[in-house]
């Protein structure tokens, strides 16, 4: 059976399948359907400094092979999270990847500071938030803003805890933003966040979502996500990537690994199948075994390498010559007039 161990910036995980931020709450609900300590890690819903009510409803619209959401980062705030959610994950034996979000560089730094000494394996920085100090410019859409957040978080967190920046695909050059994050101290990159979309109700003649725009996720965005992982891995092969975007099956997860991700998050499909992370892990294990792959780490970014021609180890045994290719008899056609 394949060795599924993977490393993200020096931290070892028993396997590469994680939940995705915002699709698993803080693990407790999904633990009713599978053991959350059996997967690589639980990426918690982005937490902010204060409790947040989220946006009005409707917050969700189904789209072909996907969905649009505009939740507005509803959450209990960091105090309740530290008191209630993180201890539960620790006691359960799950590896916690804590996602943080803020409205200013200072918010992120404060959150990271609050997480010092907390029982967590990694921090994922959700930078797809508007910067209130820069006219609502989304951090992730601006290399400078993204770098400022990453640098502040990196300084506030113990060096043993990897900091991953979660990138938005809604940029003209994702490699430039990725590079800015890495230069600012990111130990790795999570990609991708949702794509911005709108659905209009053709009966009411108005947008479906109360928030008008929403984030598109699900299998519909998978090729975009694989492309982003591919481009960033090609530019910076040494930087570990947590890949996500529309993973539904073990083979989908394999695509991300082949494109250059060291681990993957299973997100929206969890709404469809609450045991999806455990199922994807089992399917991935089987897919690797079927392909004779012994170590997961051997295939990270494999698709970037040119195909290898298989050379038979020994000459064909005598008596096994191919059959002569039969030839057809010549055919004469009638004249058509």
């Amino acid at each position, binding site marked *: 059976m394949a060795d599924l161990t993977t490393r993200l910036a020096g931290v070892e995980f028993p396997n590469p399948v994680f939940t995705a931020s915002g699709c698993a709450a803080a693990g407790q*609900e999904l633990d*009713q*359907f599978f053991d959350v300590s059996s997967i690589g890690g639980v990426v918690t819903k982005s937490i902010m400094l204060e*409790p947040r009510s989220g946006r009005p409803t*409707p917050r969700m619209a189904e789209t072909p092979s996907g969905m649009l959401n505009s939740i507005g980062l509803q959450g209990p*705030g960091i105090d309740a999270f530290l008191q209630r959610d993180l201890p539960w994950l620790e006691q359960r034996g799950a590896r916690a990847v804590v996602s943080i979000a803020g409205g200013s560089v200072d918010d992120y730094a404060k959150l990271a500071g609050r997480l010092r000494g907390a029982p967590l394996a990694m921090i994922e920085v959700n930078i797809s938030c508007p910067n209130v100090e820069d006219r609502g410019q989304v951090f992730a859409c601006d290399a400078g803003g993204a770098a400022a957040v990453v640098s502040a978080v990196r300084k506030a967190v113990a060096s043993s805890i990897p900091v991953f920046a979660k990138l938005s695909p809604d940029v003209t050059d994702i490699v430039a933003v990725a590079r800015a994050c890495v230069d600012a101290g990111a130990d790795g990159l999570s990609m991708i966040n949702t794509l911005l979309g709108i659905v209009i109700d053709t009966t009411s003649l108005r947008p479906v979502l109360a928030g008008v725009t929403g984030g598109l996720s699900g299998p519909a965005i998978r090729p975009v996500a694989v492309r982003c992982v591919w481009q960033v891995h090609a530019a910076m092969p040494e930087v570990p990537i947590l890949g996500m975007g529309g993973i539904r099956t073990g083979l989908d997860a394999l695509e991300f690994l082949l494109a250059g991700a060291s681990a993957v998050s299973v997100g929206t499909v969890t709404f*469809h199948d609450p045991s999806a992370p455990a199922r994807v892990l089992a399917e991935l294990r089987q897919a690797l075994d079927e392909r004779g792959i012994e170590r997961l780490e051997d295939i990270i970014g494999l698709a970037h390498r040119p195909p290898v021609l298989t050379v038979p180890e020994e000459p064909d045994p005598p008596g096994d010559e191919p059959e002569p290719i039969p030839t057809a008899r010549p055919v004469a056609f009638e004249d058509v007039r």
Partner: protein
Amino acid sequence: MKPVQVRGEVLGIKQVGAYWAMTLVAPGIAEQTRPGQFVAIAVGGPETPMLLRRAFSIHAVRETGIYGGTVEFVFAVHGKGTEWLSRLRQHDSVDVVGPLGRPFALPREPAHCVLVGGGYGAAPLFLLADALRARGCRVDFVLGAATGDRLFGALEAKRMAASVAFTTDDGSFGQQGRVSDVLPDVIARTRADVVYACGPMAMLEAVSRIAAEAYDGAGIPAQVAVEEAMACGVGVCMTCVLPVIGDDGETRMVRSCVEGPVFAADRLRWDALGTVPLDAVGAAAMGAH
């Protein structure tokens, strides 16, 4: 209680007026179900482009049959997902999660209970009526719908209840009008102690108001099961939220799939449905973005 995810085999599907009733062999769900709970069903088959589960309140259960525990739910064909569901036949299978949500709370002592249903929203009230009657409660029904073929469970209600009042918007069955037109009389006539309701939000709001005004404003408790749009049904997606007043008097946006679908009517912020009231916990933090 812990919900389970199982492959449910279709034991039967039939048309009931304007609706469909489907019975699934779903081991582990029937045995745990309490009135007011629901199942969440994946639609469209293994490669489906429809990712969101469809939630249906449980209409009936049979804990032990020759095939194992069964659950029955009722649905209307609204879109592609329910249309797919309506084309399933005996022995087809669907992925089903349940039982989910918070059930109706039952009175500790025998009480007079009025059960109000709008359209196929009446579906979960029959399990409830069974449970209430087993506790020695008096059960009266008020069932309403737009038209006669959209009334659900008329016969069943007549069989179970001390009385049944029917209303239709077009007068094609029972009294012309809304359930709210007859409910005050039913409460007075049956000396009702509690009202249970399930149906469209506007109906629930009217029921809630009538219950609060009963007995010259003394009021009686009402429990309502809401029908909010859900994506996951298990509490992780945060799309089915409503403004609800907690024990501490604070309004929070709570998930109707986990904290509901049944709520005490006086805890729902009827004035603010579809919005986030400014005094809700965490609403102030939304100003920034």
